[in-house]
């Protein structure tokens, strides 16, 4: 996805860009409102991440302008302010969602997905790979014409594979991606989910292969 990150703290912006790039996203960075307007005027974004406190103005004015411009790009506000009292204002001004720093990127991913799903007439986000079609927004897998609805963890696991086909992922890494840091999940759980995905993929030329001692990889025969 293509993100516009509007954040004035350089260190934080750098970290966020690095993190999002790991998931193959493209991120443009604006450190103030003026730059942000320049970017939005010249490029199309899937999603805008907006820090509400900016040096040359409150992020709120961006929201107001954005809404009056009738722009379709959804905005998720990132705020370090005390959550509760600002909340109402932010959503009323036209933000699609908000998150309080520090951000859990799994949660951000989930909220992005939800926000994009809500968009009417959103561009189709399907990836074709071999004989299958994967829509990450709708969370569907089309195998030989039949559409399968993926549940949350299955979806996220599949996304990991489909974004880097033929790459080997150790179980531990998959654990990190699937489960939040406060839960001690066993590697067994990964086996369970991989098993489910394998079932969905059966009958196609796409499969998840076990590389003994190393992990799993998605490949197309």
């Amino acid at each position: 996805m293509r993100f516009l990150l509007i954040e004035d703290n350089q260190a934080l912006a750098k970290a966020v860009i690095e993190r999002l790039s790991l998931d193959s996203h493209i991120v443009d960075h604006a450190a103030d409102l003026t730059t942000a307007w320049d970017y939005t005027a010249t490029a199309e974004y899937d999603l805008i991440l907006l820090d509400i406190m900016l040096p040359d103005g409150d992020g709120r004015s961006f929201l107001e302008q954005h809404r009056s411009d009738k722009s379709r790009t959804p905005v998720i506000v990132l705020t370090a302010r005390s959550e509760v009292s600002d909340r109402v204002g932010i959503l009323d001004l036209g933000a699609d969602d908000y998150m309080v720093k520090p951000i859990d990127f799994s949660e951000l991913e989930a909220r992005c997905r939800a926000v994009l799903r809500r968009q009417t007439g959103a561009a189709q986000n399907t990836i074709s790979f071999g004989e299958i079609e994967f829509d990450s927004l709708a969370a569907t897998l089309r195998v030989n014409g039949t559409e399968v609805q993926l549940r949350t963890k299955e979806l996220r696991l599949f996304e990991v594979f489909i974004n880097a086909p033929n790459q080997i992922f150790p179980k531990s890494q998959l654990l990190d991606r699937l489960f939040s840091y406060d839960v001690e999940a066993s590697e067994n759980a990964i086996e369970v989910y991989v098993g489910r995905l394998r079932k969905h993929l059966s009958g196609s030329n796409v499969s998840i292969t076990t590389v003994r001692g190393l992990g799993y990889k998605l490949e197309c025969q």
Partner: protein
Amino acid sequence: MLLISAAGIAILLYVVVQSVAEQIAQESQDNILAASAISILDSARVVEGDISIDLPYSSLSMLDSVTDERAFYAIRLNDEFLSGYPDLPRIAAQKDTTAFQSTTYLGEEVRIASTWRSFSTLEGQAYLEISVAQTLTGLNLSIARISRISSAIGLGFFLLSMVVAMVIAQSTIRPLHRLTGSVSRRGPSDLSPVAAPVPTEMAPLVSSLNSLMTRLQKSLSRSEDFIAEAAHRVRTPMAIVRTQAEVTLRRVEKEENRLAVREMIRAVDESSRTAGQLLDHAMVSFRTDDLARETIQLDELILDTVNRLHPISELRDVEIRIQTLTRTKIQGDPILVQNAIQNVLDNAVKYTFSDTKIAIMLDHSDGYAHIRVHDEGRGFDETEIDQLLRRFERGKNADGIVGSGLGLTIVDDIMRAHGGHIILTNNAGEGACVTLSFPL
């Protein structure tokens, strides 16, 4: 206070008037008695070497000034009784001055005046002593009348001072009431200066009140600014740490490094959750001190909160099911109420097991609206339920899960401020149940 001092003065007035009047009455009687005695002395003559007294009628008639009065006299010459009432008590008389004494005679109270004079007779110096006495009935009647008058004066003074006091108090209290009324009618955040007209005597009070409110307003906004600034300065570096930690986690290969970075992320999450709770707690303290009173549509608020939590619950494969949602209107601070509901639901999503359901019910009973949240998690340790509500206390079953003990404390504060309460119970079976009850 005023009553007591007025009563005191009234009594004092009565006593003073009474005693002065009594004294005057006494003195007038004494003067008459003395005049009578002296007039008798004056009528004594030495005739041909002997004393002769021509008792004037007026001497005794002057004692008759009050009706029903009985008069007595005794004349002694050289200590020998000469005329009058022989058993009239003798008092220590003085030469050329009159002595007085009150005593009893013939069963009645009498006042005796006594004086003596010396005369030169053929037999030498003769001492003529005159005692005149009068019953005190008349005097007592006068005193009783005086008493009535002085108590009337006292009472009159008391009543008058009461009336005056009330008039003064009213004229002071009415503007005070108006001032109080205008201040209490204000909304919770209205700290603007008082504009109600007040009498000049109250101007200093109003000006102090206004300056107090200005200082309070400044202090409050400084605190709010401080909290907002603190929030920003604490959370930004934490965000940097956490994000870089997530990046590092993807890059490390050794298992021990991976575990170390995971620990770091957990620690950051715990700090930021605590920081968030602390900031929330401060904000909640503000708002509960001066609770806003707006109409809240509770069912819609719950729906909003559940929708917002959806991405997180999905992440953990926890399904939130709203089983009953009664239309409910309550009065309170919508931001605080939402904070409470969010805290409870957050807790439920966090402490329940993956792949389970959370059930929410909103219903009415006993004049309260109850929000019940059932989860299928570990439940509360029965022995610790009361402690959980105390600050920073975490239950035994929370081990291994990131969180801070403040969450439930905050909810408790919010519920109390709204006249409601929070109840923690364990479900028969498994999991916990949290009930928030708001008065309707």
